[in-house]
């Protein structure tokens, strides 16, 4: 019973708490790589808190969709936080859903976000929404294929079970199909999270912006919720990748020491991936929008190869 | 009854060949009136043949058909056709889609086909049948052929009566004519159909100012 109450709270706290930090960390590393000093590691927190304290300006054209969107996005991210193994391989809401529910919960947030982008009648919003949907649609098959490959290897679509299986039979991780699937998944995560080379999160140029275009009209509390949700999304995607591809060290039960060790390792693993992202972002330019399908196509091919190697080779 | 038929089949054969030749005139001449004369002549031959068969076979009802044939086919119908030709004041030429030489050649082919077609039947028959059936079939086909190749409406009527002559002859030569009541019906039909055709030849001439049926091609797809 304790596990059923403590673990969810713990996970939510960790995800909510850490997600701005990951953003800050990436920014910091990038600044360093660009020989700048950069803002504080905690700058995202300051931003969010400031935004949360402010009132909001809402377009007179906008409807209730606009108001509902931040909550929907944020809550869908929270739900996902309960479905992903973070510190313990045991997922709090194990019975509630699986990785497919996770993918589609992301879709729920995205759906509302894209709708709200059209709500204000601003052309920028529509442009952002259109591009966001393009990229995410293109990413969907690769994502699903790689997830399915992982699920087939592990014999489950439940992330908790996947983690457990991979943890117990680490030899499975040596499977070429899994490596290919993880590679595909990594590319998809970059796209889904809206990072360079797919989207540039730092810009407000109409030619390049995707996610920023959609949320252009949001302000105050709404903006905070959306920003926070998007950083949670990044962290959650990374967590999925981390805890399936590198499951070692994750707590199996619910002991305090296990959790502490797991937390430490988790930080390290996330930090490592965040670092990789930062390097990636510093070394690549953003792709033209119509080059993005090529990238995602690559990911799709990798995923297909993964599934073929799973069935044919092994 | 067998003996006289075999003996006299030669006479019937000669009549048959003459009828065939008078039919070939239909495709081989360019004069309309010659054709009508040929028709009258052929009908006459047919009547003679009919009379002979009636005499040889001793079937009395054939005399009746012979009589009607004489009246109708030798006298009335040619007369009617002459009347129509004069009344409608048409050109005496027969217009054909193909040349007369070719028509004649094709007629030869048709006669061969007629023989070939009836071959399987006549080999089982008596001698009397053996010549008359192919000839009568050939007359029918040549009549048909004339209807196809000749443009004028009146020549089509001539072709049709030639076909009918052929069939009468076939009936006579194969089985001593049809039952009397059927024969009467046939004569009635021939009479009425030629009269109706005559009326239409007249009407077509009135409306189209020609009886060239090649002009009758408004109803098409």
């Amino acid at each position, binding site marked *: 019973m304790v596990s059923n109450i403590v673990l969810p709270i713990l996970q939510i706290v960790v995800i909510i708490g850490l997600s701005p930090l990951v953003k800050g960390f990436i920014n910091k590393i990038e600044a360093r790589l660009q020989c700048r000093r950069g803002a504080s590691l905690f700058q995202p927190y300051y931003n969010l808190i400031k935004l949360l304290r402010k009132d909001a300006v809402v377009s007179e054209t906008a409807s209730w969709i606009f108001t509902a969107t931040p909550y929907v996005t944020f809550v869908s991210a929270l739900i996902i936080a309960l479905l992903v193994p973070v510190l313990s391989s045991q997922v709090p809401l194990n019975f509630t859903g699986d990785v497919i529910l996770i993918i589609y919960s992301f879709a729920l947030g995205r759906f509302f976000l894209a709708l709200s982008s059209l709500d204000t009648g601003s052309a920028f919003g529509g442009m952002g929404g259109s591009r966001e949907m393009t990229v995410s649609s293109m990413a969907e098959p690769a994502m699903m294929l790689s997830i399915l490959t992982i699920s087939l290897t592990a014999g489950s679509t439940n992330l908790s079970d996947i983690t457990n299986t991979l943890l117990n039979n680490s030899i499975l991780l040596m499977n070429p199909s899994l490596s290919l699937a993880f590679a595909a998944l990594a590319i998809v995560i970059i796209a889904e999270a809206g990072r360079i080379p797919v989207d540039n999160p730092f810009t407000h140029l109409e030619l390049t912006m995707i996610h920023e275009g959609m949320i252009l009209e949001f302000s105050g509390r709404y903006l905070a919720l959306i920003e926070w949700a998007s950083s949670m999304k990044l962290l959650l995607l990374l967590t999925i990748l981390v805890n399936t591809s590198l499951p070692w060290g994750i707590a199996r039960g619910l002991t305090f020491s296990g959790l502490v060790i797991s937390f430490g390792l988790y930080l390290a693993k996330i930090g490592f991936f965040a670092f990789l992202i930062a390097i990636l972002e510093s070394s690549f330019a953003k792709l033209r929008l119509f080059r993005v399908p090529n990238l995602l196509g690559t990911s799709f091919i990798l995923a297909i190869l993964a599934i073929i190697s799973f069935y044919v080779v092994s | 009854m067998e003996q006289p038929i075999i003996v006299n089949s030669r006479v019937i054969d000669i009549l048959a060949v003459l009828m065939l030749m008078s039919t070939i005139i239909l495709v081989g001449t360019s004069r309309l009136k010659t054709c009508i004369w040929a028709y009258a002549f052929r009908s006459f031959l047919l009547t003679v043949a009919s009379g002979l068969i009636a005499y040889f076979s001793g079937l009395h009802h054939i005399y009746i058909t012979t009589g009607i044939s004489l009246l109708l086919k030798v006298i009335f119908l040619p007369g009617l056709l002459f009347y129509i030709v004069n009344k409608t004041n048409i050109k005496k030429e027969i217009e054909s889609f193909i040349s007369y030489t070719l028509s004649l050649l094709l007629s030869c082919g048709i006669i061969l086909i007629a023989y070939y077609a009836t071959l399987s039947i006549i080999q089982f028959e008596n001698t009397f049948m053996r010549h008359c059936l192919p000839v009568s079939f050939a007359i029918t086909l040549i009549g048909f052929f004339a209807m196809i190749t000749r443009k004028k409406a009146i020549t089509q009527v001539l072709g049709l009566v030639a076909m009918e002559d052929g069939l009468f002859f076939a*009936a006579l030569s194969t089985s001593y004519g049809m039952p009397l009541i059927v024969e009467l019906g046939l004569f009635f039909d021939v009479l009425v159909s030629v009269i109706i055709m005559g009326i239409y030849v007249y009407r077509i001439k009135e409306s189209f100012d020609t009886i060239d049926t090649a002009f009758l091609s408004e109803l098409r797809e």
Partner: protein
Amino acid sequence: MIIPLLLIIPIITAVACILTKGHAIPKYISIAGSFITLAYNIFLNYNIYTHHSLIGLNGFFYMDALSILTTQIVTLVGFASSLYSAGYMTVEFNAGEFTEKKLRWYYFLFHMFIFTMLMVCVINNLGIMWVAIEATTLSTTFLVGFYNKKQHQEAAWKYIIICTVGITLALFGVILTYHSSSSALGEIGYTLNWTNLLTVADKFEPHLIKLAFLFILIGYGTKAGLAPMHTWLPDAHSQAPSPISALFSGVLLNCSMYGIIRYHIITSKCVGADYSCTLLMVFGLISVIVSIPFILVQRDYKRLFAFSSIEHIGFIALGMGFGGMYSVYGAELHTFNHAVAKSLLFFCAGNLFLKYKTREMEGIRGVIKTTPITGVILIIAVLAITGTPPFNIFVSEFMVLADSFSSGNAFIIVFSSLLVVCIALIFVGFVYNVFKMIFGAPVQAIPTGEVSKFTIAAMCFLLFFVMIISFYVPPLLREILSNIYDIVRNA
């Protein structure tokens, strides 16, 4: 005397029509006459039905189930058509299309036509049957050319020439049959009677009978509208007044088909069913296929319907050719169904012509608006004639096809599959051409309303039969159809 009376009634009616004065009285005489014919025929047929067959006047007349069906169709459609004529011809007469005298002639010829067709069906002697079939041509030539304009004359000329030629060829078949019968019986006399022929058919010389059937099929086939001898049919059907077209399509073709079937039975008995069945199938399929392009691309709606008749006659021939229990049953049912549905369709065509004064489909739009009743009936008739369920023709087509498939013969299965494709294509042509006419906004300013009550009555009369057979075949009819199968099969 019981059978000849059936023939006498139309003659009396015809004479009465020509003798009376005025334009209204012949109309009513005609309706009454055809109604009496119908009623008497039902009475007669019931008699025959209870006795299975009836021979009259020393074997001069003979009627069995096959004749029942055909006479029933003749009198039924005849009555509907005379009812329809009463409306149609009166409207035309009032429009000044022809004189009063001509109108009387019309009724005279109409009933003579009925008489000749009834004659075909009740006669025992195949020679006289030939005479009667030729007489149907002769009695209708003037009806085809009734309006006496150039096109009508052309159609009439083609009609009489082509049909006479065809029927003349059939005479050759009759002569050959006669010959073989007289050699088989060894006597000369009444041997052309169908009843006699049937008893000795197995003694006939097979080669002779094969050739004879070929001539009969091509000869009567010309009259029945089997391709490629059908060429007169679209012209005559489209040029004749609509009530006559209805009789042509619905009845006349069936009468010729009746002749073919009689010979088919004899031939089957003599040389086995395969020969004549194959011929029927081949000509049937050719007819169905030939009609397709003309139905797909067509301007004139009456021609469209005429080509559909070719298709259906082909289908009946096919059904007879398949020769199984249900296919013969289906083919005969199809004969009835086609007769009522096609006549209905031609009645609709007549109404359209009266309304729009054109036979071009291009100029007609929004029939459902301008003449709602005709429109609705036209829809039903089109659906029925194309074999759309649940209407009657679907049922008969389905039976024929199902039987052909169940024969298990790969050749026939291919045949039938081809047939199904053909039927679908014909449906396409019909729907495409006719529905464009029925729906849409009317192009010209055409006043709304039906032209005549008589026409509607006639249409409703036939519609009743279409609908009945769609859902229910009365036991009596069913019995008659199975009797026909027995007759065909008994060979």
